[in-house]
């Protein structure tokens, strides 16, 4: 039968005095959301909390009404992917509006990465430089590709991945929530295999901890997600902890089935 484990941990880091990251998990509904806020004073926190809350509320509401893993022929995505994208777009609109209406929130923004699990699938929807990785066996793979100036330069062949790590401008993101009335989330779907371990994280982890260290930590502690998450955060803090660090770990059994509303169970 289905089983789904999720664990989330967020840490302020060493150099900051408040945490602008925000995480939320809903294992019974099969989704998780992580956001990394930015903006003066406490506005970054406002943006990341709004992003997570609105997305989660919207998903909770909409996922229960659709049949599982149905394919939309027009877009090539599943209905879950389309709903997750919609939830992110809705959150963006609200954050953007709030930022315009409340002077103390002016200029706030946030990244977001959303995971939705259903059947043997996972959908990742993201904006900005918060990431999702997948550990399968020995291999750590990127599920998302950062929306950052550096990543765009790498994609266009102007920089190598090594140059990117050492670049002074790695914190310039090219897409974010709350800065424009419209946002373009990327959607990635993945087929989940038993024992796959997914990691969602903010750049507080990936800016200072190399992929290889992440891979080894997940390999070694993956069975105990709490231990794996605290080890990852420890690694980032040992490297100076310059930013807030958040991680969500997800492991799904095969054919995870979310709770369905009675109506969709009868007619889905």
């Amino acid at each position: 039968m289905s089983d789904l484990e999720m664990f989330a941990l967020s840490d302020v880091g060493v150099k900051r005095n408040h945490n602008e990251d925000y995480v939320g998990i809903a294992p019974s509904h099969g989704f998780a959301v992580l956001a990394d806020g930015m903006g003066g004073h406490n506005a970054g926190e406002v943006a990341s909390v709004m992003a997570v809350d609105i997305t989660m509320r919207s998903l909770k509401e909409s996922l229960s009404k659709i049949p599982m893993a149905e394919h939309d022929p027009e877009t090539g995505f599943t209905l879950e992917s389309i709903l997750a994208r919609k939830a992110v777009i809705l959150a963006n609109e609200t954050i953007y509006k709030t930022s315009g209406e409340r002077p103390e929130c002016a200029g706030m923004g946030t990244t977001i990465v959303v995971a939705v699990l259903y059947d043997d699938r996972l959908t990742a929807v993201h904006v900005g430089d918060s990431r999702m990785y997948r550990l399968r066996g020995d291999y750590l793979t990127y599920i998302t590709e950062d929306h950052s100036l550096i990543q765009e330069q790498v994609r266009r062949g102007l920089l190598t991945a090594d140059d990117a790590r050492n670049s002074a401008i790695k914190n310039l993101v090219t897409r974010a929530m709350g800065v424009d009335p419209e946002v373009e989330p990327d959607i990635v779907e993945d087929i989940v295999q038993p024992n796959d371990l997914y990691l969602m994280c903010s750049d507080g982890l990936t800016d200072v901890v190399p992929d290889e260290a992440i891979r080894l930590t997940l390999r070694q502690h993956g069975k105990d997600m709490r231990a794996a998450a605290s080890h990852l955060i420890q690694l980032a803090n040992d490297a100076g902890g310059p930013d807030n660090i958040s991680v969500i770990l997800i492991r799904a059994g095969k054919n995870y089935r979310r709770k369905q509303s009675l109506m969709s169970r009868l007619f889905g």
Partner: protein
Amino acid sequence: MAARLILKFKENVISEIPISGEETTIGRKEANDIHIDNLAVSGHHARILNIGKKAILEDLGSTNGTFINGAKVTKHVLNHGDQVLLGKHTLIYVEVPDEEVANAPEGQSADMDKTMVIPRRDKEALLTNGQQQQGEEKKSGTAPAMPLAGVQIISGPTHGRMFELGSSLTSIGKADSCKIQVKGWFVGRQAAVLTRRPNGYHITYLEGFTKPKVNGEAVGQEPRYLNGGDIIEIGNTKMEFFLKEEARAE
């Protein structure tokens, strides 16, 4: 707080220049500290003055003007991430924390680790240097630009059949649920998956004893990027991957 300028022409990073000292001059003539040999740049175009902890950019009455983040300026206090456009060249102003500064109490100076957003129009300006790239610059709409590809079966029982890879995921295997069905003793129910993502198509092995091959090489759990013309082989079936339309870079 040390700072540097990243000099770009169109899409290309030309150099990274540390700025130090009280004055850094920028212009077409060789006597400038930053020498940009292009007719759109005036002989003595602009200068950057370091005053206290601030760097101030000043246009020196140049013919074509100096633009910061899209707005024409004569004098401007530079902030981390500012993009200075002179003619067709862009200078990105980047603050680099000194070793000592790194230990300074939080919140004193501009924080390098703070993530910043580049508005979309500035991003395009930065990556294309404000040039209309032969008029093909596409207004980035709401749909992510993704390439569209297909596979054609070139040997096997379904020889000649074509599959468009319009879905985000297309599975290959023995199972009835697979869009591309292949047979073979050791082929998995869901043997492999073709993924369509904003950065292109990849194939990944999923299950079964037989691993798919691309151009004769076995594919493992690392996703393998597919190029047009690649031959995918699995079980009793061989297929050719082809691109229907190239997605333009945003």
